[in-house]
């Protein structure tokens, strides 16, 4: 390791460009302008920060993982509904790398959801499907037989189960990145994200008022959609990425009609004893029933296409 760390920077930069472009759900670039999201950049930076800002820089976008998405759904006070999951029997349909990657993400989201609701038998079944898809994509050792055994042996220990899921997701993601298959890595993330959005929207049963917390979670996925689009935009010359981008653009047309308004400045307070900082800011969201109906329909349509 040490030997490698001392190679001249010019060589490292060449590596860096190659490696960063493949890192887990992220992209590398030396140009910020190419990657602007809806954020107006650098207005209040001081001189020192600006000096750093102007140096060569790499930009990454991190999507909510299937595990985080499932946690958001659970913490919104929802109930478990197995009928919403992609049936395990659909596995045999996935014959292309794109379908395998998308559904690896989808099954990862499903198994995260089952585990958080302590549906252990289902968790094992979905993990087995995720393993088959990972194997099909040539992802070596991301999920091995020991993983399944460990899962079965700890079915009543949710903390261990979550750690296993997190580990397997990281392994798959890192492997695809290492093997220079960034589009497949991004496809897994997109599949997981769409599945989370599908489960969340379905759980509302079309109502904007039954579970406002869940609606809020869904609305704020508008921010994640920017991340998805930026990620995919890096690889738009690739057919699979281009296809996914077109699907996400369809979602964007609807999310553009959703309003998120920051009504106060961001401030921080720190609980010194517990060493936790709270970032305070007020914001308001606005979504009409009509727009929500359109969103539900579009998410359903895209997800159906992915799992078919």
């Amino acid at each position, binding site marked *: *390791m040490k030997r*490698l*760390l*001392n*190679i*001249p*920077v010019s060589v*490292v*930069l060449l*590596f*860096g460009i190659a490696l960063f472009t*493949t890192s*887990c*759900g*992220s992209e590398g670039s030396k140009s910020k302008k190419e990657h602007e999201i809806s*954020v*107006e*950049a*650098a*207005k*209040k930076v001081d001189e020192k920060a600006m000096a*750093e*800002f102007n*140096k060569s*820089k*790499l*930009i*990454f976008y*991190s*999507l*909510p*993982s299937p*595990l985080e998405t499932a*946690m*958001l759904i659970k*913490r919104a006070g929802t109930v478990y509904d197995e009928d919403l999951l992609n049936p395990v029997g659909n596995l045999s349909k996935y014959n292309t790398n794109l379908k395998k990657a998308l559904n690896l993400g989808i099954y990862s989201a499903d198994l995260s959801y089952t585990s958080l609701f302590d549906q252990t038998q289902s968790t094992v079944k979905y993990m087995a499907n995720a393993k088959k898809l990972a194997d099909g994509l040539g992802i070596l050792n991301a999920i091995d037989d020991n993983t399944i055994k460990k899962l079965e042996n700890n079915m009543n220990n949710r*903390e261990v189960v979550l*750690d296993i*899921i*997190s580990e397997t*997701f*990281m392994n798959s*993601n890192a492997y695809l990145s*290492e093997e220079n298959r960034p589009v497949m890595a991004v496809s897994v993330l997109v599949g997981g994200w769409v599945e989370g959005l599908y489960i969340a929207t379905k759980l509302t049963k079309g109502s904007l008022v039954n579970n406002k917390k869940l609606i809020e979670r869904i609305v*704020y996925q508008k*921010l994640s959609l*920017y*991340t998805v689009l930026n990620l995919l935009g890096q690889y738009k010359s690739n057919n699979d990425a281009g296809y996914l981008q077109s699907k996400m653009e369809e979602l964007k047309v609807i999310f553009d009609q959703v309003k998120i308004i920051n009504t106060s*400045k*961001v401030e*921080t307070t720190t609980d010194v004893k*517990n060493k*936790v*900082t*709270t*970032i*305070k*800011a*007020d*914001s308001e969201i606005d979504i009409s029933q009509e727009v929500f109906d359109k969103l539900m329909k579009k998410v359903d349509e895209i997800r159906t296409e992915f799992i078919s």
Partner: protein
Amino acid sequence: MIVIAMFAFTAAQVEAQCFSYARGVCKTELKEFVHDGNYNATVLSEGESAEIYKTFFSGQEYRVVVCKVDSLPPVNFQVIDEEDKILFDSEKHGGEHVWDFKVESTQLLIIRVVVSEKDKASKEKIAGCVSVLFGIKRD
């Protein structure tokens, strides 16, 4: 051809070591927080910086861990909001590499990581693995 093969092999080796480092060393710093499963690690050299854009959701408590291999000079990180307001600067907290926080309303934040330089005039720059991992507090 041999040079290209060696180059590819070395690049793969560097990346593999970065993954081992992120999983074996950095992830342990998450402790009671469950890792979200996303792998964010790469090789950075002195003076380089990287930014990660991520949405943080209200109601969750997060831990961000920024790790670097021993041979690299100090790595500082800042957490910045959409208007480029610095919400946390590790340099002002004794070079802390772990930060716990929660957001009252969902926010898109930027984690900016900067590798400091031992000798700015030197052309020889050290490079090494830097990893940024996110954890979510368990119930």
